[in-house]
């Protein structure tokens, strides 16, 4: 698996991406008083057929990253090359064409489906918008096909979202994302709102669909155990920057960045015997404001390894082991 993905051409290349949101003051004459640096210089690539996990806590910029790739935001700086074309600079027309190839699955299956639309109409909407399957009968047939593909009875097409459970709604969201036969799907916390017993069903569905249609996923999540299960490579973000990037097994077996280590240590394991023997010291402090991030390494105020140098220089990603990149000047 690893060998294949490493040789495949990159489908997506993100280079030096920055997304800053202006902060203003005053009602009439809005004065620009600063920027929320939601994404502040991010680089990564995703190869065709690969699943890249993007993990981090609230406010680390992982969702903004996904929204930039979908061009729901126009990045402040940097490039997003999708199959060689820079998404960040596309005009409206080219963007519409591109959205047939890139789709999204959102976190909340309650607010991401229109409550006044029947499920069949929700799933058919991308086809109507893009003029795919103009014949209503063939479109209905395609809706039925998508429903059964996602493990739902085709007669669900006549239901409204409120008649369904959370897991079923998320299946509808997935069916809608698949309607245009995309090659790349941004899964933004796609299983986070689901109950444990349903979460496993949806994870399996996402895996089956990936294998069946050779899909490429950007899997944005905060649940590390889900990311480890589903992804081939993982990028850890903190305060708008990628602090560590490696093959999935390498990252979880051998985390190098102090933040990744803290994050992994904080996850309790469902086994009382393991937990009783684990030495555990929660990381101190909280995530600083992205309006005024600390100078140098953004993690230094909470880091146990921090030295004077960390307060001055922002560490760049270095390849400390083969294909294992870490933005920390202290780890070796």
């Amino acid at each position, binding site marked *: 698996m690893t060998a294949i993905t490493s040789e495949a051409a990159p489908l997506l290349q993100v280079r030096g991406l920055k997304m800053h949101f202006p902060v203003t003051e005053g009602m009439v004459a809005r004065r620009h008083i600063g920027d929320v640096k939601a994404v502040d210089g991010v680089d990564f690539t995703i190869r065709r057929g690969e699943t890249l996990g993007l993990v981090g806590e609230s406010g680390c910029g992982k969702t903004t990253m996904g929204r930039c790739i979908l061009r729901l935001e126009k990045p402040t700086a940097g490039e997003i090359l999708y199959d060689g074309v820079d998404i960040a600079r596309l005009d409206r027309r080219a963007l519409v064409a591109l959205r047939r190839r890139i789709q999204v699955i959102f976190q909340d299956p309650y607010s991401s489906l229109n409550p006044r639309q029947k499920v069949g109409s929700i799933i058919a909407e991308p086809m109507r918008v893009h003029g795919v399957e103009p014949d209503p009968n063939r479109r209905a047939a395609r809706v039925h096909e998508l429903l059964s593909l996602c493990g739902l009875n085709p007669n669900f097409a006549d239901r409204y979202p409120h008649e369904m459970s*959370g897991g079923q709604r998320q299946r509808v969201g997935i069916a809608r994302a698949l309607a245009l036969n995309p090659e790349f799907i941004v899964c933004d916390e796609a299983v986070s709102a689901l109950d444990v017993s*349903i979460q496993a069903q949806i994870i399996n569905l996402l895996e089956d669909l990936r294998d069946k249609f050779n899909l490429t996923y950007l899997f944005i999540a905060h649940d590390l*155990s889900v990311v480890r299960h589903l992804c081939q490579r993982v990028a850890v973000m903190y305060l708008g920057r990628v602090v560590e990037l490696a093959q999935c097994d390498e990252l979880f077996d051998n985390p190098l960045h102090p933040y990744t280590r*803290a994050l992994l240590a904080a996850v*309790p394991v469902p*086994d009382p*015997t393991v937990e009783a023997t684990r030495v555990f010291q929660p990381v101190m402090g*909280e995530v600083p404001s992205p309006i005024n991030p600390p100078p140098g390494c953004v993690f230094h105020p909470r880091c146990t390894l921090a030295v004077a140098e960390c307060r001055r220089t922002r560490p760049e990603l270095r390849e400390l082991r083969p294909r294992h990149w870490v933005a920390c000047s202290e780890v070796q």
Partner: protein
Amino acid sequence: MPPLLEVKDLHTEFRTGAGMVRAVDGVSYTVEPGETVAIVGESGSGKSVGALSLLRLIPDPPGRITQGQVLFDGRDLMTLSPEEMRQVRGGDIGMVFQEPMTSLNPVLTIGRQITETIEQHRGGDVAAAQRRAVELLGLVGIADAERRLKQYPHQLSGGMRQRIMIAIALACGPKLIIADEPTTALDVTIQAQILELMQQLTRRLGVALIIITHNLGVVARYANRVNVMYAGRIVESGSAAALYHTPRHPYTIALLRSVPRLDRPRQARLDPIEGQPPDLTRLDGGCAFRPRCRFAVARCAEAKPALLPAGAAGQFAACYRSNELGALAGEAA
């Protein structure tokens, strides 16, 4: 010594447009002084409604506690007058809720919200309450207490707000704290800080804790005993070690199997619980887990199984086949 809290056959119902929902359907358990008991379950299992019922915080209508006793420290909370009940809430029993932003009053300072509780329950002068508030903030690890007390909830981060909630819960020296999903809205590193804090404080002060959660890892790290709920009933209870190592109810077994784990090698595929969560308006007389259970037999449709001893000492399961499950689950895996 009698248990600190003894819940006996508690029933809570809600009248909804779709029919009567038995959100809590005959729940009994005990909490010993200083003990941490976890209540685990998924959305709609009745874990939160059960906890709110203990404190008689169920809005009526549509809800109603129809049956049951809640013996706390020798008194039945169900028979207390509203005024006596107000003294219990926030006094002998503290509460910590999931969403610290919505459970704190946005127009009062932090200090006022803490001193209000103290004045309500302990009386005394403003200066004493103020001193106690400073002391409490120190206890929950908030530095610079004098300044923080003058701030409003929106000026604090989520983790900080949850620390304030804990300070309020501890304000009057409670014997029991009920924490309903206290860390679900928080990030994982902050979740760890808050849980560690709660564990340290409850141990140090000898306060019992009921922690309601859906996170199996949190349960494993912090609970002495666990009650697993499904469709308004406790389906299994016992020590954390017994439940995780020798579960005796098919739902517990399936729940533990369905989560990806960081401490084990990656699985090729997850083993989910098939089917949908139960529709509480359409439950029949049989076991509610039956439609999703891989061990179900004809008998499961006839009557709801009672919670009976199974497996290890102090372990109980509500399943007709609980004693065969050790062998059966081994085969299925």
